[in-house]
């Protein structure tokens, strides 16, 4: 059995590598097949930004072409691209020239991961528990009132929900700041005040994500639980004389969770695209906002870098879920 497990993990890892390979390659080729020349547009931008009118533009262009090997054959460029990636070199930002893309990503990534991972996990866990309770015939009236209310919240368009939250909590009651990742005056340290400050800023976007999705998780879990509660093993568990709590948790929820985890894996893409919206609305310094600004500023290298990191993050998360899943479902260890 453990050799089966090893084989399973091996297969998943190979899949992971293939996904990464394809993602990186697509990310390399697509911009090069599109019309337009990023370098020329960079130079144009730099010149129009003023300052160095006297610049010898042709020299700069040549300089860039050489630096990025754009004068070399495609295959060489491709190999260089891989080589640069391993050095975490993704070029420089055009809109924040000459800041390296890798550095900008490194600054933005922790914000996104922190906010989205926390909020998604809370929404997922809360929604799953509430949904399961909603399906459980013994749960009380409170559950039957709360959960449908949350469902309604999840149907409100996200930007509207976010605006309502900002209005209520930041404008009307002034409990949370309306945006930003931390106070501008905060000196970031690994200490308690920094932590509190960051959490305080994360509350509103986090709340928006949780409220916007908890109902969806609850709905999914409710229908999974309803169908699991109809299974023969639930009846047999009752015939054994088990306590209702035990049946609910170990026989009911435990099985209803399995498709939920699959759904989580499938929805990770949405989580990432949702990130753009959240971060833009709440002016949050994460990858989503970075991507949004990069697209608006036609910042080729930055767009490319962020997209690549997003895809890699997704691949890593899927890989992790793939690894967790056989622990949850013994039937999966193929």
């Amino acid at each position, binding site marked *: 059995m453990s050799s089966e497990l090893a084989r399973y993990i091996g297969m998943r890892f190979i899949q992971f590598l293939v996904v990464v390979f394809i993602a990186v390659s697509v990310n390399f080729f697509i911009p090069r097949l599109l019309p337009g020349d990023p370098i020329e547009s960079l130079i144009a931008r730099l010149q129009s930004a003023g300052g160095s009118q006297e610049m010898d533009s042709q020299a700069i262009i040549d300089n860039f072409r050489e630096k990025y090997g754009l004068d070399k054959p495609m295959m060489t460029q491709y190999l260089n691209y891989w080589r640069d990636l391993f050095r975490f070199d993704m070029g420089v930002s055009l809109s924040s020239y000459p800041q390296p893309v890798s550095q900008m990503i490194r600054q933005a990534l922790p914000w996104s991961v922190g906010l989205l991972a926390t909020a998604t996990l809370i929404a997922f866990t809360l929604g799953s528990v509430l949904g399961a309770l909603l399906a459980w015939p013994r749960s009380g009236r409170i559950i039957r009132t709360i959960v449908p209310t949350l469902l309604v919240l999840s149907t409100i368009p996200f930007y509207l929900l976010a605006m309502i939250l900002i209005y209520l909590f930041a404008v009307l009651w002034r409990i949370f700041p309306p945006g930003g990742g931390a106070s501008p005056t905060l000196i970031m340290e690994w200490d308690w005040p920094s932590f509190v400050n960051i959490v305080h800023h994360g509350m509103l976007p986090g709340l928006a994500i949780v409220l916007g999705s908890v109902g969806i998780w609850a709905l999914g879990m409710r229908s999974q639980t309803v169908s699991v509660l109809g299974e023969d093993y639930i009846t047999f568990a009752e015939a054994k004389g*088990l306590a209702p709590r035990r049946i609910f948790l170990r026989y009911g929820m435990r099985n209803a969770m399995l498709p939920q985890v699959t759904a989580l894996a499938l929805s990770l893409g949405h989580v990432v695209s949702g990130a753009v919206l959240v971060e833009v609305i709440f002016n949050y310094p994460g990858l989503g906002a970075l991507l949004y600004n990069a697209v608006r500023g036609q910042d080729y290298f930055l767009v490319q870098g962020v997209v690549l990191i997003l895809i890699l993050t997704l691949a890593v998360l899927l890989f992790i879920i793939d690894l967790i899943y056989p622990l949850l479902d013994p*039937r999966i260890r193929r």
Partner: protein
Amino acid sequence: MNDGDKTRVLDVRDLEVHYDTREGPAKAVDRVSFSLRAGERLGLIGESGSGKTTVAMALMRLSRPPARIAGGEVLLADRDLLKLTDAELRQTRLRDIALVPQGAMSSLNPVMRVGDQIADAILAHRRDLNRKAIRTRIVEGLANVGLDPSVARRFPHELSGGMKQRAVMAIATSLAPKVIIADEPTSALDVVVQRQIIQTLGRLQDGLGAAVVLIGHDMGLIAQFSDTVGVMYAGRVVELGPVQQIIETPRHPYTRLLIDSLPGIRERKALRGIPGLPPRLVNLPEGCRFAARCPFAFDRCRAETPEQQTVASYHVAACHLYPQHDSLPPITASEDTA
């Protein structure tokens, strides 16, 4: 049928179970009565849809909507199971009366090891046992049903159909219940395994001295196992008596046709070959439920519902032919047209 109440471990009286449907209640189990002495083996036979599983679930008080226990008593040592509190009911299940459910293949929790599922059952009733004692009981329980101790560490999907059936039986007998209800424990198994499972059930029964209700639709298997046979038709027990008499001199016309339709009792065959269909169970009129298919039917059958009559010692039948007749008259040619 009267042999002193003291030895009866299970006494079912006028059990009624209805399925609430849009057109009204479907009387899927109608005034079913039978009793079991300690160690007795009762076979409950009837075609698919005759209400056997509905009875089994009601005996465990596991009926769920749309099913509803509409009346009757299920007496376990003089306590009515249908009147217990939830807590008492939980204690009674498995300890006093245990179910080997229909569809044992899907009755094991797919994400729990077999041993944990047995331990769960024991722990629900015996908080006093320590880990080692439970471990010992698991190994014994598995051995009793012919399974290796290593099965405890396996997940259900790693077991064959027959092994799953045995594991379910190990769980059902883990607290040495006085009554075991086995609902078609051999369905979905091949013939060789079927026979082994029935033998295992017999051995378990002997060892525990438990009374068993074996439910099935296969007269061969039922006859092989049982002391007493009850025949169900459309929610009623139409005949109940010692296995020998049921097979050799059936008194109820349905039982008779059932046995005639078998090519030979030694060859195991599913029930088939009686013309017509059982009635719909909603808005049933007065009268015998078998009347539309019965070659002996006469006017009274369509007007009055037959009650159980004693036709021989320990032998009852619900048919208007009794007590006027001693035994079933021969089926005449004119009536036997279908």
